């Protein structure tokens, strides 16, 4: 029997700013009912002008890693669709500022929202083979979308996942997985400023990929399963919460017809606890399944060590994977250490105007080769929350080279 492998630690960096999505929805003349019932989003994270995907990645992992972790990590994968440089990977800065050993492979992964899961699975196979630790970080932020329909499902955050042979939180069942790849024009980021797509094409592709990956998962098992009994809980990729209800019904339908009401009743038990933290963060991109796992552990008190959780990940473009794992022996303590609820509560609540100012500031310097980020604004938030607290901050660019420092 091979050694257990999986997630030893997770930590979420939801940015230090939170926007009330009801306020944004009302400002844009949108439907508050749809925001609550379909989007299932109450807040979103917003990058301060002096933060970016690099600082979020580093600030996610810094409080989580011990000196021993840093010495043991020999693989660093940073997944993102928000890369800041087409040549230099975010992992290079992350490697430096996390103080990892030079004897460490580091690279950036891209496959839309699937890249985080791809990183996890590649890292887990590597950790199983080598006995070393791997760090997988997903970091993403949306672009400026004032007034667009999808502005309400955007966000900014990073998640650090330590993968090792001590799976305190989640032991992966590496032999149990299903894949579904197909090329599709659903979402795209063709330039440094544009992020666009066809939402209905993407949702249809998501559903087709879910049933395809689930059927492949089942085909690899030695015998048929009863979906509802086989999985104690189910996590589905969360571009917004409401899609997980459709996803759960689609998954149940692979095994037989089920009414909308029955599917909703099962979803309430199996999946809704995984949405609590994502609902407070907005678009979670490739971090969504990791944040959902922490949410599930913190909000499903009857979940026990050894319970099987099914996870579905989808990345536009596209690639999808359905895999499973078992709740780790020390999951609750590890989730408590992550203190996701506390980190979310500690954010500064900002107004719609302040959110727009932050987004405009990012947009203004995104292609600028010489720029110094202002630390004014946001009611002195830099001095209150950053100065002297050793968070990595983005200083600006000098001749196109990005500069960072500790606050």
């Amino acid at each position, binding site marked *: 029997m091979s050694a257990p492998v999986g997630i030893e630690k997770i930590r979420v960096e939801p940015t230090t700013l939170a926007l009330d999505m009801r306020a944004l929805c009302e400002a844009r003349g949108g439907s508050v009912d*749809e925001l609550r019932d*379909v989007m299932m989003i109450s807040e979103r994270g917003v990058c301060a002008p002096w933060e970016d995907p690099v600082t979020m990645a580093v600030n996610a992992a810094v409080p989580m890693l011990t000196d021993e972790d840093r010495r043991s990590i020999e693989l660093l994968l940073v997944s993102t669709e928000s890369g800041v440089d087409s040549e230099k990977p975010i992992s290079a800065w992350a490697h430096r500022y996390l103080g990892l050993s030079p004897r460490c492979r580091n690279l950036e992964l891209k496959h839309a929202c699937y890249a985080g899961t791809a990183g996890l699975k590649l890292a887990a196979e590597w950790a199983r083979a080598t006995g070393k630790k791997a760090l997988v970080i997903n970091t993403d932020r949306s672009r400026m979308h004032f007034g667009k329909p999808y502005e309400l499902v955007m966000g900014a955050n990073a998640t650090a996942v330590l993968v090792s042979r001590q799976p305190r939180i989640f032991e992966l069942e590496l032999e149990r997985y299903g894949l579904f790849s197909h090329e*599709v*024009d*659903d979402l795209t980021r063709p330039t440094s400023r544009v992020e666009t797509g*066809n*939402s*209905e*094409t993407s*949702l*249809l*592709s998501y*559903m*087709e990929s879910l049933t395809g990956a689930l059927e492949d998962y089942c085909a690899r098992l030695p015998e048929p399963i009863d979906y509802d009994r086989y999985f104690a809980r189910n996590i589905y990729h969360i571009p917004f919460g*409401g*899609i997980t*209800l*459709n996803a759960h*019904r*689609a998954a149940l*339908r692979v095994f037989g017809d089920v009414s*909308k009401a029955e599917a909703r009743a099962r979803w309430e038990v199996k999946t809704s606890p995984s949405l609590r933290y994502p609902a407070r963060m907005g678009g979670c991109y490739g971090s969504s399944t990791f944040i959902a796992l922490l949410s599930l552990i913190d909000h499903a008190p009857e979940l026990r060590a050894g319970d099987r959780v099914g996870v579905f990940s989808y990345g536009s473009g596209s690639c999808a994977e359905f895999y499973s794992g078992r709740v780790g022996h020390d999951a609750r303590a590890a989730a408590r250490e992550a203190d996701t609820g506390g980190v979310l509560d500690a954010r500064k609540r900002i107004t719609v105007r302040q959110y727009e100012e932050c987004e405009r500031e990012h947009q203004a310097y995104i292609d600028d080769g010489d720029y110094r980020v202002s630390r004014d604004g946001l009611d002195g938030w830099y001095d209150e929350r950053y100065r002297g607290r050793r968070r990595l901050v983005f200083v600006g660019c000098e001749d196109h080279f990005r500069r960072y420092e500790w606050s």
Partner: protein
Amino acid sequence: MDKAHIKNVVLKHLGDSVEGLDPATVDTSLSMKDLGANSLDIVEVVSSSMRELKVKIPRSELAKLTNVDELVDLLHEVAAAKLAS
């Protein structure tokens, strides 16, 4: 597979997805959005109809549809092509 059957399947799933919508009185020259469906409802109707009819229509074609009649026509075309192949 005749078009009337396909239309009944689509309307059944539309009625199942959109609260308060009576499939018997739906004006199929309207878009699903005009009939009160949100993006998730539309995905549900299309996915469920394809599953029940055992046909798959290209996602690129779906993006061009403007109303319920066009969805029924497309499903009918794909089903007929499948039968002929």
